[in-house]
C-alpha cells in the first residue's frame, strides 16, 4: 500500500488575507500538509537547513526585491519546489525563477488539482518513481540538454539564470539517477521527450 508522505510547505507572504486564504485552501485539499509561515526570506533561510520543505510558496516580490537572498534560498533548497503566488503583474523573468505559479484568481478546483498533482509528484519522488515526476520546466530543460545546448544557452533560451538551470539539472539527476548529457539524452529519447533527429546524437 502506498504510504502517504506528509508534505511540508513554507509560505512567505506578507499579506494576512492571502496567507489565511492559502492556508484555508490547502486544508480543504485533504492532503497531509504541514504549513509554516515566514515573514521574509531571511527568517526562512535561518531554519531551512535543518528543516527542509517540500514546497515553498513565495510572493514573487521577494525574488525581485531580495534577489541575492532568493538565490541563496534556491541554492539551499535545490530539492524544494518553488511556487509563486501571483496577484499583481510581475515580469516574466521573475516568474520564470519559479517552478510553478498559482494565481489569486484561481478557483478552488484549479488550486486543488494543482496541489494534488504537486503533492503526488513529490510523493512519487520519495518512492523513487521517475519519468512522470519531472516537472514541466524540468522536462523543458532536459529537452534542451538532450538537443546539445550548454547551460548558458538554455538559460538564455528560457530567460532564467544559469544558476536556475543548474538547480533544475540537479533535480533532474536526483529524479532520474542520470547526470551526463549522453545519459540524459538516452533517457529523453526512451521516454519520447525528444526524437533522435532532434538530439545532439543526430
Amino acid at each position: 500500500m502506498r504510504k502517504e508522505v506528509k508534505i511540508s510547505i513554507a509560505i512567505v507572504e506578507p499579506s494576512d488575507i492571502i496567507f489565511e486564504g492559502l492556508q484555508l485552501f490547502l486544508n480543504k485539499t485533504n492532503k497531509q500538509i504541514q504549513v509554516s509561515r515566514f515573514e521574509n526570506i531571511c527568517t526562512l533561510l535561518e531554519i531551512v537547513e535543518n528543516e527542509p520543505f517540500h514546497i515553498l510558496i513565495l510572493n514573487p516580490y521577494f525574488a525581485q526585491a531580495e534577489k541575492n537572498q532568493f538565490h541563496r534560498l534556491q541554492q539551499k533548497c535545490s530539492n524544494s519546489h518553488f511556487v509563486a503566488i501571483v496577484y499583481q503583474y510581475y515580469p516574466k523573468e521573475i516568474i520564470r525563477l519559479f517552478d510553478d505559479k498559482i494565481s489569486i484568481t484561481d478557483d478552488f478546483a484549479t488550486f486543488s488539482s494543482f496541489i494534488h498533482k504537486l503533492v503526488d509528484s513529490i510523493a512519487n519522488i520519495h518512492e523513487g518513481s521517475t519519468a512522470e515526476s519531472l516537472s514541466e520546466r524540468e522536462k523543458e530543460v532536459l529537452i534542451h540538454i538532450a538537443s546539445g545546448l550548454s547551460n548558458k544557452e538554455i538559460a538564455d533560451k528560457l530567460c532564467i539564470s544559469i544558476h536556475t538551470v543548474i538547480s533544475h539539472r540537479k533535480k533532474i539527476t536526483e529524479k532520474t539517477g542520470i547526470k551526463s548529457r549522453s545519459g540524459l539524452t538516452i533517457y529523453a529519447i526512451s521516454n519520447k521527450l525528444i526524437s533522435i533527429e532532434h538530439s545532439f546524437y543526430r
Partner: protein
Amino acid sequence: MKKTIKQSISPDTILSDLILDNPQLLLMMEHFGLNIVVHKDTIRQICEQNQISIQLFILILQLYLYGEVFEKQQLTKNDLLPLVNFLKNSHFYFRNEKFPEIEQHINKIVLNNNTPPIKLLKQFYKEYLVEVEKHLTYEEKYVFPYIQRWIDNNKESNDSFSINQYKKRHTDIEYKILEMKNLLIKHIELEKDMVGRRKLLVSLSEVEHDLYLHSYVEDNILIPLIINLENR
C-alpha cells in the same frame, strides 16, 4: 551464495575457508597475483611466501569483504610494490576482461533490438571507454612510475610530480556505469534478449563494484601512504 558474516580475521585464519564463503575474494587474489589454490595455508603463510605484509593483505581482504576499512593503517614503504602490482593487475582485468565483456553483451542486445535508445547506449559506452582509458593511462604514465621511483629510492627531492596532483585529478569513474544501470533498469525497453540484458547488468554491477574498490584502494590506502612518505 552465503552471506558474508563478519568474522574475525587474524594472521592465523585459513584463507581457503574465507574464499569458500566469499567468492569475491577470488578477484582480490587475482589482483594480488596470487594462486587460487591455497591449500590449508594461513594468511600469515601466504603473505610470507609472496612478500606481502600481513597488514596490507588483511586491509584489502577486509575491503573486499565489507566494502570499507575502519582500522588505522600502519603500512610502510615496503607495501608500495604489492599495492602498485595490485592496481596494475586490476587495470588489466578492466581492460582485457570486463570492458570487452560488457561490449559483447551490448553488441548482442543491439543485434536483437534495433531501437534508438539501445543503439545510443552502445555509443554512450564507447564514449565512456575513451574517458576511462584516459584515466587508466594517466595513472600508468604518471602515478605508477612516481611510486616506482619511491620503491627504487630514485625519487629526487625536486620531482616534478607529487601525489597531491593526482589526488586533485582523481575522478569518479564508476558513475557512468551506474547511469547505464539506471537507464537499463528504469527506462530502456527491450523487445528481445532479456537474458542478454540481465547478463549485461550483472557485468556492469561487477565492474562498478571493482572500480569502486579500486578507487578506494587509491584514495584511502595508496594516497595517504604516499603523503605520509612525502612528509617525512
